């Protein structure tokens, strides 16, 4: 009887330990999954992407009007104007995504398709 009692206690402890281990494992899985979701969420976001317009000689083109013509996601219908460094921005666009960008300048019009994967992408366009 005494031995049987010890076995029961040991069996109970083992069962308890099993539950604890299973719980810890589940918590670990949830933690990893949550981290992954957060990571993916960070990668998929609305961001402002920088770009540069240059001429064939590599000189920055100022006062060019840059806009999105088409996109794999909805986008704001606002146009960016390049500064003296030829810089423009695509504001509030969904990343990752594919976009067709149109540049309008006195020297002509050009369209370029870009596949933006990360928020730190920089678009380079030559007129």
């Amino acid at each position, binding site marked *: 009887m005494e031995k049987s009692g010890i076995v029961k206690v040991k069996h109970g402890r083992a069962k308890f330990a099993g539950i604890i281990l299973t719980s810890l494992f589940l918590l670990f899985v949830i933690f990893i999954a949550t981290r992954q979701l957060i990571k993916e969420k960070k990668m998929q976001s609305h961001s*402002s992407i920088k770009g540069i317009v240059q001429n064939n000689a590599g000189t920055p083109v100022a006062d060019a009007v840059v*806009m999105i013509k088409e996109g794999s996601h909805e986008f704001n219908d606002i146009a960016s104007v390049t500064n003296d460094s030829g810089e423009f921005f695509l504001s509030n666009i969904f990343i990752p995504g594919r976009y067709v960008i149109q540049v309008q300048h006195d020297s002509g019009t050009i369209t370029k398709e870009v596949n933006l994967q990360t928020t730190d992408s920089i678009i380079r366009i030559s007129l």
Partner: protein
Amino acid sequence: MKSKTMSERNGHGSSFAETLTETPPSQQNLMSQPSPYPELSETEVEDVEGVTILRPGEGDKEVANKLETESTESETSFEESGFDIPLIESQPLDALYASYSELIPKLETQLQEVIIGVDNRVRVFATTSYPWRAVCGLKITAKDNTRWIGTGWLVAPRTIITAGHCVYMHDHGGWAKSIEVIAGLNDAERPYGSCSSSNLRSVNGWINSKNRDYDYGAIILPAGCRPGDKTGYFGFGVKTDAYLMSSVLNLSGYPGDKGGNQQWFMALKPKSLTSRVIKYDIDTMGGQSGAPVWVKVGDIRTCVGIHTNGATAGNSATRIVAPVFNNIQSWKSQGL
């Protein structure tokens, strides 16, 4: 002299409007009357008395970049403000079709899909005629000194309605540093001059949540700058789903692919609606954000949306619903 007052409500929900008519100026509350949805060929101006709506949600709570601005949380009833602008002339939309007869078939049938590569917009040359002169090109300088092009439309002598993302740019410092407003811009011509302002308005749902449904805002020009006195201005109103789906939507703005200094127009029936968004296949490009989307019945022009987004599945406007109407009306009162 033209004045406004038109409102309507039908059995499917509130519907009220603030539009231009030939009636004398008046101060009166709006009330809608039960009525069937009007056909576009008809012109209805409902008797107006007054209307009460529920307090709008937090998303439409106004946010201003000027702390001294008075609160404009909507009241529980609508009050129609006076309209006392001597319009120089009035040219109905039909005049455009006289010049561009190719538009007429497009008004009669709705295109089923966006046809990429075909541009159905037409240029508006008569930007000193109403309503085109009440459409404004916007030259936006963000807080970080980046420069942008947008569109707006006058609802008062000094109030311009536009997209929220034209006045508040989350990734570029928040409130725009300055916005130059040019009514009736036509290449190098600025028939009504231009004014700059940093007195801006938008709402909580856009500023704090960047929610597309709340993408609208306003520019209040300085006291000495009143382009609306010379141009007249748009009416605006809330329309039911059935009314909108049976209406031709007009959209005119300053697209960047044309340089951002020319006004371009197109009209089509809407493609679909949600409670807060109107989708259509009207061709637009970057620079037309903030453009008016309006319905014309006779000489009455009622803005029903603010163009904001492009998309392959359909371009779209923030729909003017009751809380949006309340805010626009409040912003209008700040620019009288």
